[in-house]
């Protein structure tokens, strides 16, 4: 009997040793290793992504350092804002337009024009599947995607999708929507913007085609956190994001490479307050932006605009490329926008700024509402930029402006008729305009 018992002892001892060894190895491992192990366990299949703590209810505000009424008058700003009021057909509203309108006007925007969509309504369109379905019907794929661990955005080139990855998140963030903004999916009603943010961090891949909006959204929410672990276990940081934004040929980024400049500028500003970049990376970003400053300083045309091949510097002016006006609107509006939050050392001379603004104002003024609505997204950047240069939020300024200059339906009708006449005349006298189809299709390729 004794012999029998003792013969079982090694077996029991080894089982204990085995359990103890694995238990200790697991307990002594860091959280990353544990999640890696859990991820490989077939029954658990835990994710490697670790949710990033967000210690704020509202996104970090980026101050506008300049009040340049010497460069842009009240009337000009009002005219531009008037042109980019969010007046859209409620049927099949393009998410891309609403996103741009929302980031420009903010969630608290209100308009006296009853056709304009308020900030609250725009936010509801983007965050409530029912409101989206009201506009698009139920045949189309839902804008808000319910995923196993969060809620994501349907993005890409599909009809009714957001054009760019994390564009919605960035725009809603810039519009100052709170983190607890309800997100109503097709069947889920318990999610908030926080869940969208975490899902975005979960499905982010550094080498995806566009990272401009991801960088902005993450920066405005998660600072002072500066590192996180993605779903595939990769260690991300704002250094990596900044390096990714600086990577490659300058015009290859979205909107002729201007969005990455804005995102980099934003990260640099955030770094001033939260120290999210390493000193070496900060230097690289600053140097990159200096290069952009020098390039646009050399590539500005006498009329004030920048071409989309602005990185070519002086050569861009000497051997101009043939491109439609809207592409110049893209380049010029975006450059004015990033400079509106840049430190003084990264600005081009005042006279060049003035010329650019004048060109933007003149170009916006001459557009009919119909034309604006075709290229709406590009013109919103002009509106945002000019508001910033006046150190105001578009919604606040417009509210004050409308108090002094109340909405007059008859004036809008007159303007509309006048613009329609001008358009007819132009069509008769000018050389053949760019085919409408080209204009319509252009934003799908180029727009932010």
């Amino acid at each position: 009997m004794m012999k029998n018992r003792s013969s079982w002892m090694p077996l029991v001892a080894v089982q204990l040793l085995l359990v103890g060894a694995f238990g200790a190895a697991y307990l002594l491992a860091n959280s990353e290793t544990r999640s890696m192990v859990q991820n490989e366990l077939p029954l658990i299949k835990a994710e490697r992504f670790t949710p990033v703590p967000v210690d704020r209810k509202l996104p970090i505000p980026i101050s506008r350092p300049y009040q340049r009424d010497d460069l842009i008058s009240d009337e000009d700003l009002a005219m531009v804002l008037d042109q980019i009021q969010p007046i859209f057909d409620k049927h099949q509203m393009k998410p891309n337009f609403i996103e741009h309108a929302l980031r420009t006007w903010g969630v608290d925007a209100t308009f006296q024009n009853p056709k304009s969509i308020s900030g609250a309504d725009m936010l509801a369109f983007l965050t409530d599947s029912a409101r989206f379905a009201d506009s698009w019907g139920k045949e189309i794929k839902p804008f808000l995607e319910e995923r196993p661990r969060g809620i994501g955005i349907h993005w890409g080139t599909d009809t009714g999708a957001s054009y760019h990855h994390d564009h919605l998140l960035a725009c809603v963030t810039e519009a100052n929507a709170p983190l607890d903004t309800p997100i109503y999916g097709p069947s889920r009603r318990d999610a908030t913007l926080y869940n969208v943010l975490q899902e975005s961090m979960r499905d982010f891949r550094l080498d995806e085609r566009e990272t401009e909006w991801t960088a902005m959204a993450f920066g405005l929410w998660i600072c002072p956190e500066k590192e996180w672990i993605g779903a595939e276990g990769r260690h991300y940081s704002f250094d990596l994001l900044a390096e990714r934004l600086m990577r490659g040929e300058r015009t290859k980024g979205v909107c002729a490479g201007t969005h990455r400049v804005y995102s980099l500028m934003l990260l640099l500003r955030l770094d001033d307050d939260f120290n999210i970049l390493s000193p070496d990376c900060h230097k690289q970003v600053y140097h990159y932006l200096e290069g952009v400053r020098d390039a646009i300083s050399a590539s500005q045309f006498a009329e004030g605009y920048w071409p989309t091949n602005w990185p070519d510097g002086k050569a861009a002016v000497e051997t101009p490329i043939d491109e439609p006006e809207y592409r110049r609107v893209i380049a010029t509006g975006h450059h004015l926008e990033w400079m509106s939050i840049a430190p003084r050392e990264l600005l081009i001379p005042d006279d060049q700024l003035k010329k650019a603004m004048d060109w933007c104002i003149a170009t916006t003024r001459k557009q009919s509402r119909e034309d604006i609505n075709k290229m709406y997204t590009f013109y919103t950047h002009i509106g945002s930029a000019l508001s910033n240069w006046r150190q105001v939020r578009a919604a606040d300024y417009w509210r004050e402006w409308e108090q002094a200059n109340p909405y007059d339906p008859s004036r809008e009708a007159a303007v509309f008729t006048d613009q329609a006449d001008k358009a007819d005349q132009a069509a008769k006298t000018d050389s053949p305009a760019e085919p409408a189809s080209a204009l319509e299709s252009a934003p799908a390729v180029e727009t932010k």
Partner: protein
Amino acid sequence: MSTIVRNNKDNNVSRMNHEPAVETKYLTEDGQPNVALLQDRTPGWLKANVSVVWLTIALAVLYIYSNVLPVWHTDLWGHLNYGRWIVEHRAVPQLEPTMPLARGVPFVDLPWLTQVGAYEMIQAYGVSGIQFLNGLGIVLVAGLLSFCVYGRTRNLGAALLTLVAFYWGSYQQILVVRPQLAGLVCFTFVLMMASSSRWRRWYMFAIPATFALWANVHGSFIMGLLLLGAFTVGRALDVYRHGKKWKLVLADRGVRGLLLSTELAAAAVLLNPYGIAAYAEVFAVSKNINLTSLLEWDPLTLRMKQGQAAFCLALALVAVYRMSPRRVSAREVLLLIGLGVGMLWHSRMIIWWAPATAYYLGLHTAAIWQRWHGPRTKVSRSGGLWTVVTLGIAWIAFAYTPFGVASVHGREQDPRRAEKKYRSSVSPLTPIDLTDYLKRHPPIGLVFNTYEWGDYLQWAGPDGIQVFVNSHAHLVPEQVWQDYLDVSRGSVNWQDRLDRYGVNTVVMELQGRDALIKQLEDSAAWEKKYADNKGVVFVRKHPLE
């Protein structure tokens, strides 16, 4: 020289017969020591015989061949890069440290010990040090298999067949010098212990110790655990088949020994710098999507040379099993079928199947031989003389290799001869001249390179060269890998992708990259700066910042 020698017994007999005693002569007539008086005092276990000598000759040939075989141009240099990194930083990496596009990617570098060892060897002895390690590993595996078969069967032919079958089955895999070979040595050692006819107590310590080492030299320890698992189950089935009682199974010494060894081995694996992450890493790598585009992770087919070898070996195996009088154990069936299925799934698995197949092929061939020719009656004479001969052969084999020469005479001092030696010791596909060009003209920014050359460019190229990918494909982010494949095939968007990544230099192997090379030649944005019979370097005319 000849003399009459009698021992004491003979002397006593002579006296009894009243014959004159013969005097023992310690010196011969010419004054030399009388060697005929010498007795063989070699310990029994050290005594060799002529079969051992023949086996040693075969292994010596294999060793010399492996030592002069030029080292393959992939993988090895990547491991040396990591070895260098570990030595310089005195720590194992937690994140991939050498590829700019893989920054932040977690890295469980299980072969760290092999990498450090190989790095130290190449530092001390040049490439010959690596050739030595490779030859040693191959001979250890072949030696373990063939000597084990010989030890169990006393059949030299079967032992030599084992050696040949192993090498034939796995030569394409072991051609690439990498830490996997260290894993193969461990695998074979465990196979020999687990398959021995008698379970020895010291296996309980030797097997876990092997796994503790294995987890630090290569991630293939999981194959060893599968082997032990198959053997445990197989042994249990065999015992149950005979006794039809589970109680007997649990009481069987062999089953217990294997079971406990498996468990202890599983625990011993945890003794590595990454701890329990070693297990997770093994499974994660096996599922990595990037590896599906690599040939060695494809299923085995008859179009492959190793597929043809596997087919022939499998046929031979079927034949010997059909004829063998030797009892077929469940463990060998489980092992061979399990590894065989794995091999069909991923051709790379042939490296584990081949030694097991060779081993059982040898054992069963010996059994057939015995059946046909009866038990061996003539036993080879063993003695210290054969041991000396064996050692002599081993020394000659060692001394006649590049490593032997380097360790005895020191490294080549003449730069021209050293250069010549270096060129002959690396694969002809190694981009030596191209790398020299890059060292003279260091590239600016990211270099789009042939994946097979990434390691060598990092090892021998200019300091801080930023390669696009290297042979550690599982560490490359998926999107980067897809873009690499698209560009290297010369797909429509190749230029756009290179622009987006900011690539200023393209380094391409000529073989199989015609489409991209043609497009680069035709492009106005790129200029061919260097070309030889192996590869080509293109540089962007206007480099991106």
